[in-house]
């Protein structure tokens, strides 16, 4: 017997297929990762004599656009998963590719933001406000890149599984989606914390 049980069918006691439990555990660790950064932000800000006001230094319209982009991408990903559950494979792929495109859009906007700062010789070395800004949004951005990589894989070489075992594939999309929503969630807190408050 060498097939791993409960990869697709849910376990009778936990009620979950293994991937879902796994991704939630991973997200719990991500809560601690970003929690440490938020905690550092609080400590540094409380301990500083003068901390700049985010709204005066950062581009709020662009960040608001990015917030919209991520929220919409969260919807497209969950609609993509729902389409898979309904067997509408073509629609699902469309939603998921839109998600990827929106994710790229987010990165492009971020690129503009960073570029504007660098052209004014502003960097993490300038002061701790910018150090925090670049580090937190940078790490968040790396998570976006990771998400893009996963979705692109699932939509290209990983899409074979959709023909072989649609339920298994749908589960993988669900797990990737959960990760994606988490990335959106982090931004929902990052945006006011860095830009508005």
């Amino acid at each position, binding site marked *: *017997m*060498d*097939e*791993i*049980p*409960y*990869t697709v069918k849910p*376990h009778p006691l*936990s009620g*979950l297929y*293994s991937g879902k*439990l*796994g991704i939630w*555990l*991973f997200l*719990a*660790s*991500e809560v*601690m*990762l*970003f*929690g*440490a*950064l938020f*905690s*550092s932000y609080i*400590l*540094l800000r409380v*301990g*500083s*004599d003068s901390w700049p006001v985010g709204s005066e230094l950062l581009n709020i319209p662009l960040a608001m656009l990015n917030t919209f982009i991520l929220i919409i991408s969260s919807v497209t990903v969950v609609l993509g998963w729902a389409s898979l559950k309904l067997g509408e494979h073509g629609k699902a792929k469309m939603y998921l590719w839109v998600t990827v495109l929106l994710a790229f859009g987010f990165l492009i906007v971020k690129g503009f933001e960073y570029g504007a700062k660098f052209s004014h010789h502003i*960097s*993490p*070395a*300038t*002061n*701790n406000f910018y*150090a925090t800004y*670049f*580090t937190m949004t940078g*790490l968040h951005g790396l998570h976006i890149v990771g998400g893009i990589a996963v979705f692109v894989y699932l939509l290209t070489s990983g899409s074979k599984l959709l023909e072989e075992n649609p339920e298994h594939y749908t589960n993988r999309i669900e797990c990737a989606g959960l990760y994606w929503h988490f990335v959106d969630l982090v931004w929902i807190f990052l945006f006011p914390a860095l830009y508005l408050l």
Partner: protein
Amino acid sequence: MSVAHETHDDHGHHVELPFWRKYVFSTDHKVIGIQYAVTALFFLLFGFTLMMMMRWQLAYPGQPMPLIGTFFSEANMPGGIMVPEFYNQLGAMHGTIMVFLGVVPLAVGGFGNYVLPLQVGAPDMSFPKLNMASYWVFLPGGLIMLASFYAEGGAAQSGWTSYSPLSNTAPAGQTWWLIGMIFLITSSLLGSVNFIVTTIQLRVEGLSFFRLPFFTWAQFVTAFLLLLAFPPLEAAGVMQLMDRVAGSSFFLPSGLVISGQLLDVAGGGNPLLWQHLFWFLAHPEVYVLILPALGIVSEIITVNSRRPLWGYRTLVYSIISLGFLSFIVWAHHMFMTGMGTAMSNFFQTTTMIISIPSVIILTALALSLNGGSIRFPTSMLFALAFIPMFAIGGLTGLPLGLTAADLHLHDTYYVIAHFHYVVAPGTVFALLAGVYHWYPKVTGRKMNEALGKLHFWISLIGINVVFMPMFFVGMAGVSRRLYDQTQYAYGAQVQGLTAMSSWGAWFLGAAQIFFIINFFWSRKNGEKVESDNPWNATTLEWATPTPPPHGNFPEVPKVYRGPYEYSVPGAKSDFSPQHVEEG
């Protein structure tokens, strides 16, 4: 050892994998476990060697190291005499390597990976590819750590704790340390998800949580510690990297002067932030060091005393509370940082409370021996020694947890003695016990008993000669990470004890040769085991063929009873395996 590697192609036919995928990039938890174990044993030896070099400088400060002193570079050991910067590198890397590349990969990556799926009756871990990934992220991390010795200015040299601002401004090796840590932390996160999901999802029918072997419980709780405690250190590592590479000042305060020069940074940072984030991981990490050991000792003691574990349920609740409490004691490493009495009282209290489950567990292990028919294979000798050794380590932690006493003892050799007692004759003894115990299952042969007993007795004596004097050296006021204690009158007075520790360390090192020889020799020449269950144990890992094939169990086992039904009155024999229906 031959671990049959087959996989199934699309039609369920067995397919022989090429060598590359069978033994190198394998997804089989047993191969991965062995990879972790062998790699970790090498790192343990390397870290031990670093320490043996340090001990020369400590025993004979400023003297050229005999025999091998001239092998080292002019920068590190001109004329065979160690310079302080190199001493610091050896110290920082000894700690880092032992904790992150030695003990945890062996205890968790090695034993956990190999034994846990077997004990729950599973064909493999829940996510075999993720498991493979975790090893192949661990190995580069370890190699980066080793390579850092060749960085400009040398390896990390600010302690394994890498406190800012010293670490911020240290030479290039520190950057390598940070990058290496990011690899290691990632590897650990991938592994811990696997352990938790496997334990929850893949237990066979009849194997409820309260029928799990204590070893599995220990690994399960440990995985939660790794999952939730490591990320803050990863965040801190990223921030220190930003400070070092991108010029930020997360941990650099304003107005910092180094060597008479004002540091040209924005400032406004907080060195204590690093300490909080580091210790938030590093305290649970020490429980990661001990919990698997408690699990291993439980297995070996029950098998070799033919008695059940005393107070199994209590032990389970204790280990869960130990795991939980380990997250809220960390600032007892920071009592000297001026946090105010309210918070230091809080941490003192939680630290005192956490000693309760530890004592319960140790007492239960000792009580498990009562009335037993005790056998003394080498594994049992190490497991028995663990109990008093860990007790010494644990008890000597109490003065450190009390703020008033910690005032005098913090950062002295007393601390070094305390934590080494728990990790060295504590955990490492338990890990060695585990090697002797499970070697027959992995290889089909027993390790040589005569060599084993020699290894044990010399190690037991040697390790106490190393660390017992350190309590007194510490109480005399000699601080940690000190290149030459004879510079101070109080240090010179106890130099004799320090030299004694060094001789103990070299003696202890020599004893390991017996183990190394035994480990390799027994693979081909050890006494072949007559059965799949040579120790007559009850847990599921002994119900497999020897060595276990791909998929582990030819037929999916069912579990009918708890894990430690030894010497049950009225039973046919003195042990009732979990998977056998008749009692």
